[in-house]
């Protein structure tokens, strides 16, 4: 039950994009078409899950035993950067179609603050291993949900009569704000 709560909360209540405002740059940059939004969402989910696993291992087996928690940020950057490289190479070798589909998004995620935020938050909340993994998957699903919803809205927005000064990023940010308000309504669901 506890795990389900973590999962749901990562998707809806503490959504990375709409609650923490992390990962805004892919959220605005790659949300013009639903297809690419889905690819981006899947890539983020994938990297988040792997990051959650490895960062937990490093944190609990190396940093905490040596009292080096203050090195979390540096070591997580190291982990994420090298992991994404590794994953990219692996996918390129093992599944060229998937590599083509994820394309440019995979290396872009390396510098995504949502991934960093995930590793740090999981460490901050003192989750155990299983909880961390669930948290990672849930956060990724939450990101995918937000970016796909946003892409759907923006595809419709292309047909709408948007005032000249608000075109592009302006209206996208307003929509994101309204979406965040909407997701705020979920906050009563889980204490």
């Amino acid at each position, binding site marked *: 039950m506890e795990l389900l709560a973590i999962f749901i909360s990562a998707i809806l209540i503490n959504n990375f994009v709409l609650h923490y405002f992390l990962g805004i740059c892919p959220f605005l940059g790659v949300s013009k078409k639903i297809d690419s939004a889905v690819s981006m969402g899947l890539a983020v989910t994938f990297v988040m899950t792997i990051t959650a696993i490895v960062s937990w291992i490093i944190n609990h087996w190396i940093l905490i035993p040596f009292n*080096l928690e203050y090195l979390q940020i540096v*070591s997580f950057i190291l*982990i994420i950067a090298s992991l994404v490289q590794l994953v990219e190479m692996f996918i390129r070798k093992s599944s060229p179609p998937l590599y083509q589909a994820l394309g440019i998004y995979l290396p872009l995620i390396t510098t995504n603050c949502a991934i960093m935020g995930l590793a740090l938050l999981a460490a901050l909340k003192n989750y155990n291993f299983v909880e961390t993994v669930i948290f990672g998957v849930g956060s990724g699903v939450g990101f995918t949900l937000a970016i796909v919803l946003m892409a759907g809205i923006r595809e419709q927005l292309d047909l709408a009569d948007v005032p000249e000064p608000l075109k592009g990023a302006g209206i996208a940010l307003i929509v994101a704000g309204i979406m965040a308000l909407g997701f705020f309504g979920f906050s009563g669901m889980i204490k």
Partner: protein
Amino acid sequence: MMDVLVPILTMGLLGLFFSLGLVFAYKKLRVEEDPRVVAIADILPQANCGACGYSGCRAFAEAVVKGDAPTNGCPVGGEQVAAQVASILGEEAQALVKKVARLHCRGTKTAAKDRGEYIGVTTCRAAHLVGGQKQCSYGCLGFGDCIQACLFDAMEMGDDGLPRIDENKCTACGRCVEACPRNIIELHPVDQEIIVFCRSLDRGPLARKVCKNACIACGICVRACPEGIILENNLAKIVDYKKILPEQIPAIEKCPTKAIGRIHRASEEEQAKTNEKQAFAP
């Protein structure tokens, strides 16, 4: 001392571990890539316009190396790029005749009669849905969707209400061809001089009633050059440009509505008109 050494050693070892991991993975997982693909991709124009029929310059480069696409398959790059691509592949460049987009309509504001005033979204696509402003339902709508679509700044709207194509700038990428809802823009080899400037399938009298420059299917051009031109659905059609001999061109140009003729005539005619006007000006 330990407070300093432990973090340095930990981070150093972590870094070493990951870098060794990456080095090892790179050796194991490296994908061999054909250097010719990279070299060809580098010389392509990188417009990613898709005129070659592939999804982008990179995809075209891969297809050329595989042998699926011809070395001169990039219409944007022209002969120069074709020659470079061929030299990378060690082949002779296949001769590339430059193509340009051409408009098959001379329904200018003065020549084509309006059916009424069109008030609405000012794109050809929208106007096409309700039939457009002109009585002719085959001619140019004149809102310039093709000009919008052009990436190379090769088109502009003329004063006569028809788009004009700068053949030096045109790269035959085909975006205007796709943008035109009436399909009256086509790509032709740049050396093809004779063109039918009409797409109206209306019968002669009707076609002439709605537009002074329409093809009325009288057959004068067909009689002048039966091998190269035929009549089809009330419209003259050039079936084989190469069979039109230079000495037949004057006879073809006797067309009563000037719906077939030399491509560059339009500008000369206008020039003559403006000269006339200036001559009559007080």
